[in-house]
């Protein structure tokens, strides 16, 4: 049996939201310092580094005075940090590193020290999608939804209710960007961004970040906070172009990453007490619930609008308020992990009773890539 892996430290940046006085790199540093403090260790204890470019792992390590024995720059969008945890687990088991720092920092709103995206004009994406007037995720991640609605009868009201349910969680979280209760009517009255999506069905754009300290479970007693065990992990990719998804009513990458993570952890959906599904847009939790097998195909919209995922429901989902209400820097996966860690530790703002197993589903590059983590309060 493989040695166990734990998250020994986890923290977000000191502030979230609009932070025009801190650069992208500065957000990485702030998150890293907070995570190191949370784990009760020193930066000099870290021998492995993972983050996305830019600034990338070399810059972050150098800024923090870390000389790594192991480096991971996997950059596959907002789920990258879930993949970093998976890769870190493998590296620790292989003996390549003992204490790995995973960082995220993004000046998504203020754009201070943020990298410009590289030109994609000659890539398939640039030749076969951009000429049709795509402009980021609001115009592409959203395209499959109408096909899902037609095939499975998901209503506009049910789609809107995803945002309503998550706002109920955000109302309990002092760090959430939006906390005022909303109704389906409010969502449907907000301006259209890309039909059928209204503004309140789209994620925020904020500044912020966070970091994690990953190490082996045999050191669990060495840290001040309860260990959060990484019980299972999965990753997969489908297509960089939304038009080339195999089936617009389901995410193959979600399903495959989830299958592997659940199998490694040896759990089924009935074992899960808490769930995070990266909600860049209101339809993503619907796709995620079905891909992970919590409900049958076509049932997730009704499951959410019947109240099962909101406070008091049987399957607490996106309990920080999610990308729709809590925060969304552009690569939200780190924040989904952070909330899973807090829930397992029992220190979340909207704490769910008795969370032993938390599952985190991340997406990257829209439906391009997925990572899934199964976190637990005890080893299995």
């Amino acid at each position, binding site marked *: 049996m493989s040695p166990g892996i734990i998250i020994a430290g986890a923290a977000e940046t000191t502030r979230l939201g609009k932070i025009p006085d801190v650069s992208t790199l500065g957000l990485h540093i702030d998150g890293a310092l907070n995570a190191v403090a949370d784990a009760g260790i020193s930066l000099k204890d870290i021998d492995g580094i993972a983050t996305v470019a830019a600034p990338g792992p070399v810059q972050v390590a150098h800024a923090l005075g870390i000389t790594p024995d192991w480096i991971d720059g996997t950059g596959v969008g907002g789920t990258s940090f879930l993949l970093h945890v998976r890769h870190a687990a493998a590296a620790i088991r292989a003996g390549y590193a003992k204490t790995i720092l995973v960082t995220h920092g993004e000046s998504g709103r203020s754009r201070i020290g943020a990298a410009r995206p590289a030109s994609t004009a000659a890539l398939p994406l640039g030749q076969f999608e951009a000429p049709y*007037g795509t402009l980021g995720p609001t115009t592409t991640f959203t395209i499959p939804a109408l096909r899902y609605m037609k095939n499975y009868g998901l209503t506009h009201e049910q789609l809107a209710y995803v945002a309503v349910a998550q706002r109920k969680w955000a109302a309990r979280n002092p760090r959430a960007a939006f906390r005022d209760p909303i109704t389906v009517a409010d969502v449907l009255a907000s301006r259209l961004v890309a039909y059928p999506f209204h503004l309140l069905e789209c994620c925020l754009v904020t500044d912020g970040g966070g970091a994690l300290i990953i190490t082996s479970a045999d050191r669990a007693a060495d840290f001040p906070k309860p260990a959060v065990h990484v019980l299972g992990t999965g990753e997969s990719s489908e297509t960089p172009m939304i038009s080339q998804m195999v089936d617009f009513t389901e995410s193959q990458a979600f399903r495959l990453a989830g299958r592997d993570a659940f199998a490694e952890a040896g759990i089924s959906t009935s074992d899960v007490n808490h769930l995070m599904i990266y909600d860049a847009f209101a339809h993503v939790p619907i796709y995620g619930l079905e891909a992970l097998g919590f409900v049958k195909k076509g049932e997730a919209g009704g499951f959410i609008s019947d109240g099962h995922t909101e406070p008091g429901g049987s399957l607490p989902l996106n309990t920080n308020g999610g990308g729709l209400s809590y925060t969304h820097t552009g690569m939200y996966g780190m924040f989904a992990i952070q909330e899973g860690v807090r829930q397992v530790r029992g220190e979340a703002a909207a704490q769910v009773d008795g969370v032993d197993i938390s599952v985190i589903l991340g997406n990257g590059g829209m439906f391009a890539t997925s990572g899934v983590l199964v976190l637990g309060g005890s080893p299995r």
Partner: protein
Amino acid sequence: MTAPAPARAKPAPVPTPETQPYWDGCAAGELRLQRCADCSEAFFYPRPVCPACGSARVEWFTASGRATLYSYVINHRPAPGFESDGPYAIAVVQLAEGPRMMTNITGIPNTPEDLVLDMPLQVTFEQRGDVSLPLFGPAPGAGAGGSS
């Protein structure tokens, strides 16, 4: 008074050697796709390998240009060059030959009422810089969508 900002051009594709035959086809008013010579799978986007079986024996053929409307959004925050279009559909169509591709829908109002999923469409071409770009409009004789 300041002069209005110069109108930006819509983005034009930059062909690569592997995709040039596709764009040459568009310039000739034809939608050209690739097909695998080993497993017969038709596929899109152009590339020198069959995604179904891994064969490098791929060949070009001229597609019918017939398609149906698979899914879309109507974008209210225009990309550079699309500012004067009003809300426009970014659509994915199901080609009669099997593959799907992104496109814009022309010749019909881009409204939820007019754009009915599975409606039949036919390829048409629009000049974009040096390149001819395939768009889709209502199939001849199929009506113009609407409240069917």
